[in-house]
């Protein structure tokens, strides 16, 4: 297969196979297949599995049922974001957290370190686990042809263990594109086999293999954050939209510091914006108000679906209300922009 390959945190990943926009549009209209094996699966097993996760995660997971998943965040003791992740509950004593590929080793150490006083076993599953994301309105139709169970029974943010093309998989209805779709976890040895089987099954329904470039523009349109760009260990959780996930009623790592920040205020917030003029705001571009720097762009792209330039950035809280105008310094040119609600695109 012909693809443009790039280095992503030491992983050789495809940037695109055909073109980023062709892949992007195909995911919105029919379906796309992404190799996301770089993502990190960490298993937490044992009597205290839930207790440990309650300590690590900012949101309450005590009401989760087996077969459900949740989006969650881990903070450090400074209240900054260690990683955003998804939690899968297999049983009362077995969970997975799926973390960003780039943060896997750090997250694993953090979890293991904090697990010392808990009755749990923490295992890193990434080296033996492959992951494929099948995304788009036709994802269910395509996957159903290969799946042994009725996929319509898996609702959004639920998962099941089932065979796909004869291969045992964990299949969740979820993804990073803003479309309907599935994430499949299975034995790494079967990766090529399942990749080819899915592409073949999707041929009639216009399924395209997709790379990181389309993954990035799709997630941005859907208002989903990218770790290392939009969120990181330098920014407080309270500055990001993830603050809505916090459960203040329970104890969790970072809470003490976040409570202080909450009463003090955080200065800048991460917001969505769109450009009113031609150009593309890119990561690192300065956000200005009357030539005064008031923030910085963390993600930006031309949106193939909305046909305008969109982005995310940190901006002074007095400017972060939807509708507020500002300028982005794009290589010396001041381009008008305004704060808008995210997601930019909803299916």
């Amino acid at each position, binding site marked *: 297969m012909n693809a*443009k390959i790039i280095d992503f945190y030491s992983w050789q990943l495809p*940037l*695109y196979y055909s*073109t*980023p*926009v*062709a892949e992007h549009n195909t995911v919105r209209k029919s379906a796309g297949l992404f190799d996301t094996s770089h993502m990190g699966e960490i298993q937490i097993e044992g009597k205290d599995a839930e207790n440990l996760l309650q300590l690590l995660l900012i949101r309450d997971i005590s009401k989760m049922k087996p077969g459900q998943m949740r989006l969650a965040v881990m903070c450090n003791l400074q209240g900054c974001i260690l990683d955003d992740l998804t939690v899968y509950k297999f049983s009362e004593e077995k969970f997975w957290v799926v973390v960003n590929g780039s943060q896997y080793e750090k997250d694993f150490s953090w979890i293991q370190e904090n697990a010392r006083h808990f009755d749990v076993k923490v295992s890193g599953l990434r080296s033996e686990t492959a992951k494929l994301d099948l995304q788009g309105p036709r994802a269910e139709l395509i996957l159903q042809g290969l799946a042994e169970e009725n996929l319509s029974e898996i609702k959004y943010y639920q998962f099941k263990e089932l065979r796909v093309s004869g291969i045992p998989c964990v299949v969740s209805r979820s993804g990073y594109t803003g479309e309907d779709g599935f994430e499949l976890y299975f034995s790494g040895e079967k990766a090529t086999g399942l990749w080819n089987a899915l592409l073949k099954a999707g041929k009639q329904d216009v399924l395209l293999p997709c790379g990181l*470039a389309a993954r990035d*523009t799709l997630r941005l349109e859907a208002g989903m954050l990218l770790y290392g760009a939009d969120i990181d260990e330098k920014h407080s959780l309270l500055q990001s939209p993830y603050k809505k996930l916090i459960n203040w009623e329970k104890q969790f790592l970072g809470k003490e510091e976040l409570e202080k920040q909450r009463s003090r205020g955080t200065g800048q917030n991460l917001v969505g914006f769109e450009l009113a003029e*031609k*150009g*593309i705001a*890119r990561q690192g571009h300065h956000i200005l108000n009357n030539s005064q720097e008031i923030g910085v762009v963390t993600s930006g*792209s*031309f949106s*193939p679906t909305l046909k305008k330039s969109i982005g995310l950035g940190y901006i002074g809280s007095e400017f972060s209300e939807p509708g507020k105008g500002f300028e982005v310094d794009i*290589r010396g040119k001041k381009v008008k922009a305004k704060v808008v609600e995210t997601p930019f695109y909803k299916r």
Partner: protein
Amino acid sequence: MASPSDKKYSKEHEWCKIEGDIAVVGITDYAQKSLTDVVFIELPKVGQKVERCKPMCSVESVKSVSDVFAPVSGEIVEVNTKIEEKPEMLNKDPYNSWIAKIKLSNKDELNELMDSKQYDAFVEDEEKKD
């Protein structure tokens, strides 16, 4: 794709077609493929002086911004405003989507450009590096 034989080519992957003392300039198929989907082009200005191998304007794709280098020195005498409205034409039909016309200031520079056969061989080498 073999490049058209009626044009000359630069190492920076621009083509130019010589019409008297005017060079009609665009980007090659290899250039558009490396750029991927072009969403904006910032055209040069009529009257602007350009220098061979120096940036004359920029194109922006979903992933990046890139300079377009002048394949010859001279003065911009006309720009293709249709390309500004439909920048995707640079991807769809690069050899029929001219960007600007340059009035040559030094005809000797044309000897520095490659013909289509030389350029195809050059691209083959570049692709091996990818």
